[in-house]
């Protein structure tokens, strides 16, 4: 079941991509982004599978180009644990059924080799509304240098 109805409130279940109903497009896009970050942190590949279009690709802040499958592999891995991930300085630009969302993402993680990383990144994400669902088609992160 895609939705759990509790006291008349529809709560998205695990892995459910936000629909394009309710709230403004900007609010929906920000909600998608928030859930995207949560899914990355909680290794929720099911959500990412629904969110990412088959042609999705990401230029990571480390300077790699990752396909959907490679992002999955990274998200699935428990070698790297994201301790904190949040974003601010959010800007949403709407173009019909497409959204270009930029933000400053702060990430703190560690891996099983003891490496710790804290950094700020400028991210751009491109989202499309397809069949009343949001899909991500592209993303790119750039480390913010002091």
């Amino acid at each position: 079941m895609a939705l759990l109805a509790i006291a008349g409130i529809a709560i998205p279940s695990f892995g459910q991509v936000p629909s394009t109903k309710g709230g403004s497009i900007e609010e929906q896009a920000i909600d998608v982004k928030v859930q995207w970050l949560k899914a990355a942190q909680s290794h929720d590949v099911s959500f990412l599978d629904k969110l990412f279009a088959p042609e999705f690709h990401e230029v990571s802040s480390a300077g790699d180009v990752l396909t959907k499958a490679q992002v999955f592999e990274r998200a699935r891995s428990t070698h790297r644990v994201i301790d904190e991930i949040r974003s601010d300085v959010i800007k949403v630009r709407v173009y019909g059924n497409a959204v270009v969302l930029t933000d400053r993402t702060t990430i703190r993680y560690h891996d099983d080799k003891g490496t710790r990383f804290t950094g700020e990144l400028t991210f751009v994400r491109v989202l499309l509304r397809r069949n009343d669902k949001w899909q991500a088609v592209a993303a790119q992160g750039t480390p913010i240098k002091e």
Partner: protein
Amino acid sequence: MVGSKPTTALSRILQSITVLLTVLLTSASAQVAAKNPRLNVDDQLKKLDQQCVEAERKGDTTFLDQLFADEYQFVDIRGDILPKAQTLALIKSANREIFELLQPAEIEVHVYGNLAVINDKTTMRSESSDAVKIDSLVYFTRIFVKKSGRWRVVHEQGTVAKAPPPAG
């Protein structure tokens, strides 16, 4: 009039075949037309992308002013966000980077109606007036949006590519 019935029947059959062929041919040509404009859009965007890179290399702010949408944002390789006016001012300034080389490769175009995402891997070799040298491979994303029949750049972002592992 006696001989006119077979002629009429034959004429109707011929008319039906003609209509059928017309429908089939129209449908086929429509499909070809539906594919070709898509290819043309990709080519058109690739060309525009090259012109954009070339204008940035030469410092042609007149061209870029027309190409960049008002809400254009540039995320440079330091992660700083520059709006259109600041980007153009930087390109125009005396201490702008002088590009010895700005060569995109591995160009990929994804068109989604009136929005397109273009990715490339650009070799950048430059030196600013204060002798800061850059010699890097940079992944660029340019996002184009079609507005009033014209493609405009709304977002440009660069990330330095990961250095390849040392040989051997």
